[in-house]
């Protein structure tokens, strides 16, 4: 098995931390509007796990694409995206049929957390980024 790139791990950890913060914020909002119960919490947790897993799998796909032919890369990335979308759909469908355990609304909202976190990514400089040789060679 190929070793996971430290860049992928770094970005995934950043997204996971940001998404966790947003999940707490969302639960706080549900609490304030009086709609919070355990199903909201479980829905948030499932959505959070699914979105972070989706981001991680995307990172793995990108990492594995390096060094391959252009046509192979395009096919691999498309296949990966279809697979990941089906995974997300499957999780949402499973959550819908387990209505008593998971609330589908926070689950679907949690799917968008990585996008919001990525929007703020340029404002942060993570540990290990300073040692990037590419930054100084331009």
């Amino acid at each position, binding site marked *: 098995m190929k070793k996971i790139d430290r*860049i*992928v791990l770094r970005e995934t950890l950043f997204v996971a931390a940001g998404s966790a913060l947003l999940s707490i914020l969302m639960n706080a909002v549900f609490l304030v509007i009086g709609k919070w119960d355990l199903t909201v919490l479980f829905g948030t947790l499932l959505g959070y796990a699914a979105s972070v897993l989706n981001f991680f799998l995307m990172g793995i*796909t990108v990492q594995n694409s390096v060094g391959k032919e*252009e046509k192979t890369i395009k096919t691999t990335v498309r296949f990966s*995206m*279809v697979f990941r979308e089906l995974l997300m759909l499957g999780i949402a469908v499973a959550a819908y049929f387990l209505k008593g355990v998971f609330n589908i609304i926070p689950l679907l909202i949690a799917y968008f957390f990585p996008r919001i976190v*990525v929007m703020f990514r340029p404002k942060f400089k993570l540990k290990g980024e300073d040692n990037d040789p*590419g930054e100084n060679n331009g």
Partner: protein
Amino acid sequence: MELAIGIILGCCALGAGMAMIAGIGPGIGEGNAVAKACEAIGRQPESKSSVTSTMIMGCAIAETTGLYALVIAILLIFVAPNMLVDILKTAVGA
């Protein structure tokens, strides 16, 4: 009444299927972006770290469009039919 409910369910399913067409675009775009980024890494291997990082972020952004479509499709399949049927029943008084 049954016909109206059938039309609502059919249209919701049709809408969900049409929403998923939006999932095609991000897949193609993401594939092209990653292919070009890998080409750039091949030309300048020393910039691998920064290119990979930017590429992952770009892919995450591109993928959101597909996720929007997915969420709309899920809502159309699971949430909308019940809501619309309830509205219809209220309007008809059944």
